[in-house]
């Protein structure tokens, strides 16, 4: 797996994310439902990877595991050199704050905070003064083209704008990895294209590694590669660009 040629950032040696024999099951009453069965693959630093598959294929579960918000039943998951499975709850939370930027399908902004405050929120976990937090949040919002919407509440923004605020929030801590779960699933085509172009820019221009779950092949077309999942197993990898 190689880094995209378009990326100006030279990736470090070795994969950023390494999954080995990942197994995940869910319990439904007495029944054990397998979700992921022995998944192994790597994601290089600077890569923009799309995970695709039909409903119930396990793509969101896989993304949750990579993001450290769920744990595998067995297997080894190393992200940014850290064996995620060995971290306790508090360590894992701290690890997520340092390494992961989240983009959710429904934006998941705090409705009582302004766009600027939403972007500033993750910086509360950093040892940073108020002014510096503000400046960084303003810069992040400017990068996503929302410099004129900083004081707006999420309810005063369109879906596309809200998702761009969420992208700015995901960027603000300069995470190692950005995970996006159906980032365009709730958007109209025009807004979805805006958001995808923005994500592609983050990958191309500042070398952010992005893993995106989507069922939309147009959205997946913005990635370097598509990893296909079916019934909890990898069914193939499709290289798109780079």
């Amino acid at each position, binding site marked *: 797996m190689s880094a995209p040629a378009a990326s100006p950032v030279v990736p470090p040696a070795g994969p950023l994310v390494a999954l080995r024999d990942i197994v995940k099951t869910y319990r439904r009453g007495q029944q054990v439902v397998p979700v992921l069965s022995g998944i192994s693959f790597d994601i290089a630093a600077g890569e923009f990877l799309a995970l695709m598959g039909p409903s119930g294929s396990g793509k969101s579960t896989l993304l949750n595991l990579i993001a450290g918000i*769920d744990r595998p039943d067995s297997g080894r998951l190393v992200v940014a050199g850290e064996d995620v499975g060995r971290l306790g709850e508090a360590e894992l*939370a701290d690890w997520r704050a340092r390494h992961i930027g989240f983009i959710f399908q429904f934006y998941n902004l705090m409705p009582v905070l302004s766009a600027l405050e939403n972007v500033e929120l993750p910086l509360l976990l950093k040892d940073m003064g108020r002014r510096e937090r503000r400046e960084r949040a303003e810069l992040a919002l400017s990068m996503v083209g929302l410099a004129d919407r900083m004081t707006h509440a999420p309810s005063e923004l369109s879906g596309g704008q809200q998702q761009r605020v969420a992208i700015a929030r995901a960027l603000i801590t300069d995470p190692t990895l950005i995970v996006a779960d159906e980032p365009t699933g709730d958007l109209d085509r025009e807004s979805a294209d805006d958001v995808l172009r923005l994500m592609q820019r983050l990958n191309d221009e500042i070398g952010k590694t992005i893993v995106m779950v989507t069922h939309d092949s147009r959205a997946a077309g913005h990635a370097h590669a598509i990893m296909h999942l079916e019934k909890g197993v990898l069914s193939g990898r499709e290289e798109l660009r780079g």
Partner: protein
Amino acid sequence: MRLILILRNVFRHKLRTLLTVVGLTVAVLAFGLLSTVVEAWYAGAEGASSARLVVRNSISLVFPLPLTYRQKIRQIDGVRAISTANWFGGIYKEPKNFFPQFAVDAASYLDLYPEYVLSEAERKAFLLDRKGAVVGSKLAATYGFRIGDTVTLKGTIFPGQWEFVIRGIYSGRDAKTDVSQMLFHWDYLNETLKARSPRRANTVGVYVVEVSDPARVAEISRAIDAEFRNSYAETLTETEKAFQLGFVSMTEAIVVAIRLVSYLVIFIILAVMANTMAMTVRERTAEYATLKALGFGPAFIMGLIYGEALAIAALGGALGIALTFPLAERFASAMGSLFPVFVVSAQTLWLQAACALAVGLVSALFPARSAARVRIVEGLRSVA
């Protein structure tokens, strides 16, 4: 930012917050008022001096004591001063106009009760007029008594029409002083009784005794009672506080009921607020899951919920406490002289604040725990 989140969350559902705050305000207000009623019940005992004893007939307060006991009690070691008082029980115009009236040995009685503050001129005028009376400032305000007014009482225990001239209006040395009484001359009562029903003359209801050393009250009480043992009117001597509490104990069931109701009111609002907080947390599950995903720990999330509950509790509690004063004033005024002392005490205010705080903390306990335990993956799903 945390404070911003808390405050904005408080006012997120304005109607819900408003109704919760109103409920809490009413509960804290009711608690304060009921506590003040209970305190008012005990006010007589609270205002009692530790250096005063009350000597009464051991059979019942209804039976008087002979006047001749006065000298014998005065001679007992440790007794510094003595006075007398008779419960009069008169009706002013209508039976509903209840207020305590005592026939007292005026000069010694006023000396024994320095907490009844009377100007020198008024005291002198009172002492010089056998039909004179002094009234407490609250009583004077309730019925519009002024110095020089003639007040006629219809006797119940001592039948007949009794005329008094107001010669003074006393005020209280402190908030606990009973300023709803009327004091008049025992001599006036006694001389009238001599003419109307001589068998009832030369007796007193109780002796009030001041001791030289409050530490010796038990010993002196025993000595007084021993002095009259096996006489036809044996005595029961107790501290003024015990004497007052004896009256309170007759109505203790009411006091207990009031106390129970006051705590019940707080418990009800606690349940209401716990439900409000639980609803709030349920609605925001996805937000808490998002915060956890971003790296915020359970302590941050619990802090948000506790902060919100405490902010609502503080608002309701502060309003309730602030409104207690005007409501207590109106209540006291409506009750007339039923409660001689009706003051919202510092203890009541602290209790109100503590109740509001407890409601805030306890109502957030389970919702905060459940929010802190939200599994991120499940919590995020609840957004859809």
